């Protein structure tokens, strides 16, 4: 049974009292996820944040192991982050984005313990969108809608929010501010769309000249992969604190940068800009289906928002196969 929540501020206040709450907060020209000090910092006037919430599950830089020497021998201690946090105001597409991260890190023969620990301790409170952003393509991907992956899902309505519970953790957050209701409203705004039917034929377009011509302006700056909620590649390195202690750490990496594939003798795979751009687009839109049974791209448009030269992968897909 859904609930009606009339006073969002009051609810946020109770949340902040008991949890670390991370929500979209206005910066100069955009919104970004920040730890809320007070419920007054949150305003529902954002479409979405410039950067996704991925950094709270996969920090830009993260210590994995602590090495320390005792009696002449090193030991390695895994550093698992178990801080309980609430991600508040997450848009439906980003709930899908987190589901992609879950697939990458939690499925297969190996579970990524560091991601798992953060993820298990993160509560997700999603809020449906009233309008789509300039570069949103959620309609093409169906990602404006979520059926799982959240603890609570809020739908804005005239007299407050319809709240759906997605987990036991979510259930625990229901307090006297919520009243049971049988209203079943959703907000599914219209967004831009692209010729999605072409995605099935991506194999055929691999050698399309468009990848080369479009990549002529690409700066290989990696702004797109930094902003992408499902770009999760990383590099592992050791860092020395003193001769007896140090960390094995990981940090975000990008397939758009040369050092991503560089091996002995200065040999770099996928060196050409168009190959890197194509790799990004194919991974997000096509290869991920074979790898994970889902499409990594959630259509959030952040790669378009952040690209300094206005490259739009959906616009490229639209034009693939045309003379």
């Amino acid at each position, binding site marked *: 049974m859904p609930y009606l929540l009339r006073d969002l501020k009051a609810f946020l206040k109770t949340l902040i009292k008991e949890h670390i709450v991370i929500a979209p907060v206005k910066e100069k020209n955009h919104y970004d996820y920040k730890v809320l000090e007070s419920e007054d910092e949150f305003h529902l006037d954002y479409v979405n944040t410039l950067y996704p919430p991925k950094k709270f599950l996969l920090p830009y830089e993260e210590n994995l192991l602590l090495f320390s020497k005792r009696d002449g021998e090193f030991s390695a201690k895994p550093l698992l982050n178990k801080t309980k946090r609430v991600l508040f105001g997450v848009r439906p597409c980003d709930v899908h984005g987190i589901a992609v991260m879950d697939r990458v890190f939690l499925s*297969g023969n190996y579970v990524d313990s560091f991601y798992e620990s953060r993820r298990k301790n993160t509560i997700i409170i999603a809020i449906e969108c009233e309008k789509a952003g300039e570069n949103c393509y959620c309609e093409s991907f169906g990602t404006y809608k979520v059926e799982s992956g959240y603890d609570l899902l809020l739908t804005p309505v005239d007299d407050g929010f319809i709240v759906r519970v997605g987990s036991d953790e979510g259930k625990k957050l229901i307090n006297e501010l919520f009243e049971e209701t049988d209203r079943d409203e959703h907000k599914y705004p219209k967004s831009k769309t692209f010729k999605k039917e072409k995605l099935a034929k991506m194999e055929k377009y691999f050698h399309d000249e468009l990848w080369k011509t479009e990549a002529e302006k690409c700066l290989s700056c990696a702004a797109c992969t930094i902003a992408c909620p499902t770009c999760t590649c990383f590099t592992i390195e050791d860092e020395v604190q003193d001769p007896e202690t140090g960390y094995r750490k990981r940090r975000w990496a990008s397939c758009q940068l040369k050092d991503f594939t560089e091996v002995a003798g200065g040999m770099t795979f996928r060196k050409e800009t168009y190959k890197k751009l194509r790799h990004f687009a194919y991974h997000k839109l096509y290869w991920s289906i074979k790898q994970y049974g889902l499409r990594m791209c959630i259509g959030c448009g952040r790669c378009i928002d952040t690209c300094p030269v206005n490259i739009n992968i959906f616009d490229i897909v639209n034009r693939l196969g045309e003379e």
Partner: protein
Amino acid sequence: MNPYVPKAVEIIERHRETDDTVSYKIKWNPKHKPGQILEASYPLIGEAPFGFASFSEDYVELLIRSVGNVTNTLASLKKGDKIWVRGPYGNGFPMKEMEGNDVCLIAGGTGIVPVKAALEYIIKNRNRYGNVKVFFGFRSPKQLIFKRYFKNWEKDVELYVSVDRGDKTWKGHVGVVTTMLDNISFEPKSFAIICGPPVMIKFAAEKMLNKGLNESRIFVSLERLMHCGIGKCGHCMVRNVFICKDGPVFPYSIAKDLED
């Protein structure tokens, strides 16, 4: 089990192989297959992927070529020191599938690592395989790796060794490894394993195809920059394939189409 936590194991033997390579025997016996890989590291220095250079239930051999920060440190360890390892990862060679057939092993330089493991597996199970020919190519006589094993291997298999450039002491074949294949014919149903630099793999595979081998019976081991070894970090991706997890061994029928 946290897959990123390595285990410290003791180095029980150390051999200098060439100017820039050393080999270790380490006290570690994970269940593994020839062609699989591992991550070896040293605290505060870093981690790098390596192949299993042996096939034994008692120990693991590693070959380390110094090319940079991590490998320089790993190559400077002594007998009795600890080295940190995790794995095995990847698929390995289809040793079972090759049973009952002739096998041709071709390696260039440090590509000898996984081939040596496959060879030791074959020698352990010698009666399960037909004629076995092994071709090793090195840059010069000074670059020969695992030379001390050659005599023993020759008891069980046909071993051919060449160097790109010979010297006064060298009495063997001179020329790139693939030139040794020229006058040799192979049963078309044979299997081949090829490891080495990308160009060498391509030449050797094409040559074996010309000799009538099926492209799905030629197995190559591919190398890419790797960090995690377990399909998470993305560095080793080529198209939809993770070299670390789906490979590093691929039939040539697939490897030839792995275009970036």
